[in-house]
């Protein structure tokens, strides 16, 4: 039963949607019923697979780039107050700038290939990682720092053996948020200029008013996002089973 509840949530949602479409007689151009979307999804599966793979690839590259850049940045920010004050406004700038507004520049600079999409996915997903990693890295107790210093830990050891493991639970919440954002990032990147990918498919189906296929594309995007999110969550449970957020409360026996 409890295994089914996530499915239950989705089913309830779909049922409401399907019913709503029929009850309120929602025209197809506005919103097709889920059954129609499902049919299209199956029919057009090869197409969705092709475009989906493109988007997934861009998304993964952007995400990896974000992780690789955000974590050292967070380390820098937490280890030097001056660096923090120097870099944070700029990070904020990149975060706040609407990506849709600057993405055309990427198109100009980097052409229509994969690069601009990867960059948008990167830009959109790196900030939550930086912020959450920074909180995590800062949340080590001063006693723990004392312990590390008395052992003569090098800066690297202090980081790798103490700070990083301490920060993992918070880092992972950034990584999870970033995972969902990177999908959106790849799509926005494709919006700006692409000839393949689910974002491209969205644009085309939208302008052709192929609403069912458009929704099927949205479904495909959601599936990708869900899978990616759960992969990161799985990694989390695997890497930090010791953290209080993952400890199962001893519950056997009578109480």
């Amino acid at each position: 039963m409890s295994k089914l509840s996530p499915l239950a949530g989705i089913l309830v949602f779909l049922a409401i949607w399907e019913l709503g479409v029929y009850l309120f007689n929602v025209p197809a151009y506005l919103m097709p019923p889920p059954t129609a979307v499902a049919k299209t999804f199956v029919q057009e599966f090869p197409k969705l697979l092709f475009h989906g793979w493109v988007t997934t690839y861009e998304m993964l590259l952007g995400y990896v780039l974000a992780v690789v850049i955000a974590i050292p940045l967070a380390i820098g920010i937490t280890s030097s107050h001056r660096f923090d004050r120097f870099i944070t406004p700029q990070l904020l700038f990149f975060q706040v700038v609407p990506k849709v507004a600057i993405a055309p520049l990427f198109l100009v600079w980097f052409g229509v290939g994969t690069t601009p999409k990867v960059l948008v996915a990167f830009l959109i997903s790196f900030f939550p990682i930086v912020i959450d990693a920074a909180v995590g890295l800062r949340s080590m107790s001063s006693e723990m720092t004392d312990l590390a210093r008395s052992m003569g830990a090098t800066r690297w050891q202090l980081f790798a053996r103490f700070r990083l493991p301490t920060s993992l639970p918070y880092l992972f919440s950034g990584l999870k948020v970033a995972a969902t954002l990177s999908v959106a990032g790849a799509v926005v990147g494709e919006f700006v200029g692409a000839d393949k990918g689910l974002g491209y498919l969205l644009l085309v189906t939208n302008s052709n008013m192929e609403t069912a296929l458009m929704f099927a594309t949205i479904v495909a995007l959601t599936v990708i996002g869900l899978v990616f999110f759960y992969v990161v969550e799985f990694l989390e449970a695997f890497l930090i089973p010791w953290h209080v957020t993952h400890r199962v409360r001893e519950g056997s026996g009578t109480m």
Partner: protein
Amino acid sequence: EKFPFRLNWTLYGEHAPFFVARDKGFYAAEGLDVEIQEGSGSTTVAQLVASSNSPVAYVDAATMMRGISNGMPIKAVGVTLQQSPMAFIYRADAARPTKLSEIKGSRIALTAGDASLTIFTAFMGKVGMKLEDVQMITVANPQGKEQAVLNKQADALLGYFMDQGPRMQLQTGVKMGWTRLYDLGGVSTLSSAMIANNNWLKDAKNQDLLRRFLRASQRGWQYTFDNRAEAAEIFRKAAPAFTQEIALLEVDGTMSIIRTDRTKGKPIAWSDVGDWRDSQDLLAKYAKLNPQSDLNAYFTNEYLSEPPYMPKK
């Protein structure tokens, strides 16, 4: 009486006649206080009309036809641009598609959400090519395709010859060239149209409103046709970003495609069923449009007036 009217996009020269009608008091003379609202693409605006958010709006006819075949309760009540202004626009100093033979393999930038994809699909079909024969770069906003061409990421963009081509040239100093799809392949559809919501139209009071609005608009278009420079100037008051030169170029271009052979001598915005049939045939054949058995589902001329478009007492 307040009357909201939503345009297809943010302001460009094609919209000048509506501002003329407003500023010269043509709307006021009909007892209308028209609020001209900007839009964000024909698809979205058509949806807004279909869902009664904006009862009357200005959208691309081909987009509207697709909407109708998808069940949108809307129709055209006046077609202002009757030929497609769609053109390849390219740098004059680079490789470009000016002949059919040059199209294959070239990189074409186009915006989704407006008419370009539909027409381009039809065009390619008509000239015996497939969409896959070019490398299409689909972008979400117009600047993207302009930048792509300026920066030679694309060989040409699909845009309105009287709008984007001259404007880019003036704004950037880069010499631009353009070739209309019509000239290349004889492909055309009806273009910009004023549309209304069918349910809204059922109300006699609204019908009267619409009549008055269309009459004043027709008068605005006629006045613009006759007084281009003044129209451009009036338009610039609403859109200060434009120079007189660009505004005038755009107005001139617009005025060159407001009629087809079939509608010569007819009132402004009056459309012919034959043109609708041609448009539908083209779109049905090449762009997956579900044809309507009754072409009257698309349009009506019944709310238009005869020249000289003066208000009734």
